[in-house]
């Protein structure tokens, strides 16, 4: 049994012709007397023979034609990124357009707010002026009775303001 333990490791090499002549003779001698190891050797031989018989088929010309076509296509695809990275990069338009659009929107909003504020200020000043003018209007002129006279008086005050002399 102990001998079997040592020979078991050698059986595969014995079957595969990987042993030196003296070792081969020793294993052969053991196999003659040991049924268990002989059976093991036969099993290994059957496995190896079957594996070696299952050789790759010889591919047809069509197979090699497809193979070459596919290989060229794959190789070109693999080379394309390298080719592109070697070229000078053109400026990328997308970010530029996005930044420009955002800038225009912000500018438009700011301008609108600024103008609105100005007009509001101007409108307020006009109201104050008008109120002041109304105050200066002769209180004797009754409202609703002589609107033409009232407007005429305001125009007169404007005229005096613009021509102080």
């Amino acid at each position: 049994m102990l001998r079997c333990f040592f020979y078991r490791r050698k059986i595969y090499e014995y079957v595969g012709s990987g042993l030196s002549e003296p070792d081969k003779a020793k294993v052969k001698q053991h196999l003659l007397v040991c049924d268990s190891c002989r059976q093991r050797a036969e099993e290994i031989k059957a496995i190896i023979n079957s594996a070696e018989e299952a050789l790759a088929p010889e591919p047809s010309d069509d197979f090699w034609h497809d193979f070459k076509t596919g290989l060229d296509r794959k190789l070109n695809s693999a080379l394309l990124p390298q080719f592109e990275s070697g070229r000078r990069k053109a400026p990328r338009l997308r970010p530029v357009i996005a930044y420009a659009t955002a800038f225009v929107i912000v500018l438009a909003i700011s301008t609108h707010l600024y103008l609105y504020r100005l007009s509001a200020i101007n409108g307020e000043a006009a109201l104050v002026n008008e109120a002041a003018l109304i105050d200066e209007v002769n209180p004797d002129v009754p409202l609703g009775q002589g609107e033409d006279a009232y407007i005429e008086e305001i125009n007169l005050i404007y005229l005096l303001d613009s021509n102080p002399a």
Partner: protein
Amino acid sequence: MRQALDREKEKALIERLKDGERAAFDDLVESYRSMGFSIAYNMAGNLEDAKDILQDAFIKVYLNIRKYREAGSFSTWFYRIVVNCSLDYLRKRRVRSNINFRPLTDEEGREIEVADLDSEGHRQVLQEEFRHCINNCIAALPEKQKTCFILKHQSGFSCEEIAGTLGCSMSTVKVHLFRAVKNLQGKLGPYIAK
């Protein structure tokens, strides 16, 4: 292992390839495709996958040819690439080999009647089935055992050549081979006994 080209021709071809000559690549493919196919086919088990593996391997050769050092054999370098591509491909494909031994009982647990094993016709059928089982069992081996076994017994490499291709020692190769055969024997032994 067959040497696709003699050393001088191989060296000249590689120089041309390093210079970026596409025609040199075509010549290289022509010279090495058969041997590469044998490895890829035995690893993958079918033509289509073998074709993809070999294409990937040649593309890697083309893109990395400048990394190849002439100190080593080009064949060894190329076969290593094919083996690595095969293993990558198999990992991606996530092969789950289903080893289907012929059941000795049917679905209800009743014993199936086995035909006369002595007839010649039946023997051939059994042989064919056994070969199929062997291929499944080889496919189910752990990666390194499978690679060593295929290179040794199906692609005809010596242990030394396998060691060179896989970048390990000969002792390691022998251990992998021994374990591979032991595994196969464990799975197929009872089948052989029948």
